[in-house]
């Protein structure tokens, strides 16, 4: 099965995606495309860390955006209070991770006492409290408006990375080497590193234990693995990674608010990405994130065109309204869970592997 064509195709596809992302600023030279590429990088990490839970260990958590938000707000609050600087970013990342670990341990230990199915409900409730708190504690979090701040000086669009003899920014293939580019590569390489770490983790013996727990909890326990400890550990791990992703996103966006970092909509995005890409495989996270983010940015435009085309027909324009795109994604999501529970990558991987 390891050598099946499908497996190779998935590998090739994922490497191609990372390659495209690596040269994105040079290949797609407009602001929106760079925004999309950065968002894809962040969501790959976020989705992969969520896949550690849902795909590898079989834990359903709805609090993943909460950890993402902790990281984002940690960096945002400190960048606002301490001014732009690397110390603020590092401290913010650390604070986000620490808070995430504490909350994850607390939730993990509390919910491990109860039925596994409660876990999903409890994480949902915790996440909603976090969201409400973020909008209520407005002196720290800026409430509904969120926080705007400046990123470290290196990432300012005016920063010149390389200057030529006349003191102008050097351009390579028509792209000026300014702070924006540095910011993108900061996002890209951090995301790549985090993704790599997770790929190694699931390839390590730990990953095998997690899969064993997912497949048969009682048997894993009987062999001698402490299921509870492993579950709590992986919950904390994925929380920490999500928090770091949040910090990176906060530095890139230079704005953090409930809508960009904490809202339930992001949680739904993550769920859709995991399921579309394929649960239980890190490669699926990459495919899912790319497809969903592209759909978010470009499918809406398409729907707008379609809605204009059917004006006059009752209800149809309303259903094709770009704001209703989640409706269609939701339907696709349900169909996917029915017919392709292993997602795109899971299905493709087994192709050509028939014995």
């Amino acid at each position, binding site marked *: 099965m390891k050598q099946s064509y499908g497996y190779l195709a998935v590998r090739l596809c994922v490497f191609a995606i990372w390659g495209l992302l690596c040269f994105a600023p040079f290949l797609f030279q407009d602001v929106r495309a760079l925004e999309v590429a950065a968002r894809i990088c962040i969501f790959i990490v976020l989705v992969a860390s969520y896949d550690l839970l*849902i795909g590898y260990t*079989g834990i*359903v958590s709805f609090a993943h955006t909460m950890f993402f938000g902790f990281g984002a707000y940690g960096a945002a609050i400190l960048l606002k209070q301490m001014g732009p600087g690397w110390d603020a970013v590092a401290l913010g990342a650390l604070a986000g991770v620490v808070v995430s670990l504490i909350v994850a341990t607390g939730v993990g230990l*509390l919910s491990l*006492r*109860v*039925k*596994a*199915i*409660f876990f*999903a*409900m*409890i994480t*949902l*409730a*915790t996440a*909603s*409290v976090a969201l*409400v*708190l973020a909008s*209520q504690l407005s002196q720290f979090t800026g409430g509904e408006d969120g926080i705007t701040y400046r990123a470290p000086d290196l990432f300012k669009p005016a920063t010149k990375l390389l200057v030529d003899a006349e003191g102008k920014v050097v351009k390579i293939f028509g792209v000026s080497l300014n702070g924006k580019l540095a910011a993108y590569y900061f996002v890209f390489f951090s995301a790549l590193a985090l993704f790599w770490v997770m790929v190694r983790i699931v390839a390590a013996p730990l990953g095998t234990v997690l899969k064993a727990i997912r497949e048969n909890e009682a048997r894993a326990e009987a062999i001698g693995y402490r299921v509870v400890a492993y579950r709590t550990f992986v919950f904390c791990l994925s929380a920490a990674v999500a928090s770091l992703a949040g910090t990176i996103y906060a530095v890139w966006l230079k704005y953090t608010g409930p809508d960009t970092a904490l809202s*339930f909509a992001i949680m*739904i995005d993550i*769920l859709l990405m995991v*399921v579309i890409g394929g649960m239980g495989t890190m490669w699926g996270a990459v495919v899912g994130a790319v497809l969903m983010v592209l759909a978010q940015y470009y499918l809406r435009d398409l729907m707008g065109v379609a809605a204009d085309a059917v004006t006059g027909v009752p*209800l149809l324009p*309303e*259903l094709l*309204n770009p*704001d*209703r795109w*989640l*409706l269609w*994604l*939701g*339907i696709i*999501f*349900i169909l996917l*869970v*029915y017919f392709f*529970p292993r997602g795109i990558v899971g299905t493709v991987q087994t192709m050509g592997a028939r014995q």
Partner: protein
Amino acid sequence: METITDKLGRIGGVNLLPVAVAVAAFVLIGAPSSWATLTVAGLAMGMMVFLMASGLSLIFGLMDVLNFGHSAFVSFGAFVAASVLAALSGWLGADSVFLNALALSLAILAAMSFGLAAGWFFERVIIRPVYHDHLRQILITMGALIVSEQIILAVWGGTPITVPRPQFLEGALILGDVSIEIYRIFAVLLGLVAFAGLYVVLNRTRIGLLVRAGVENREMVEALGYRIDRLFIGVFMAGSALAAVGGAMWAGYETLITPALGGEMMIVVFIVVIIGGLGSIEGTLLGALLVGLTANYVGFLAPKLALASNMILMMIILIWRPNGLRPAVK
């Protein structure tokens, strides 16, 4: 030797918790009139939440199906009732109590029938293919929730909708210096009727016996030759209809509803179900009353804490009793 626990158990055990909360709040609040108002508000909220939560609890208890889309029924109930009430606003404003009541009953009936139909559809199309697979159940019902929310947005739009109340439920009763909204009394009464109805059906009829037996041990009931899946679809439809009625009542209570209503209530409903213990309506009632009372008392005593009060309550109860207060599922 009899311990204090035994004594407490004999006079009601955990059932006394709402009373204990009410007494503690009475001491803390100090003013009897505000206490009475808050208590009635808490009971009313608890009863409406009970309507929404009881179905979820039974569905899980009977078939081990966790329906994350349950709150969609609540929202649909609220919006359907709001539309019917708006269409009949002429009757609502009329002086005749009969016309008022007729409009209200029609609205509730509409919500209920919608809940029944939606429940049937949901069970057949969404849930049936994924029995015994919790992960996919959660994912699919979540997907269904997203779709239903979007449908509500598409049909009713995103702007808040005002819900007219019938004339005879407007205003407040004044007893001494205590003022009690009539709508709240009505909500409590309706909730009590629903609870009594459920209780009688579950404890005094043959179908109820089968349902309770199914909650206790599904395989055994199936082995005895009963079609539990047919029973289940009935329970599912009834639960959805109750949720829709709860939503309709809630719409009248809030008088201003947005499509976010379902999502907000879902959290409360989950907390109630977890606190109460899955599969028992007594537990759900207990949980709902506790949540309703605590939310109102804490909202008065420490408004800052109000948001987290339900969470804190749930955590305390889970640490004390990990399976909820009165679980039916062992």
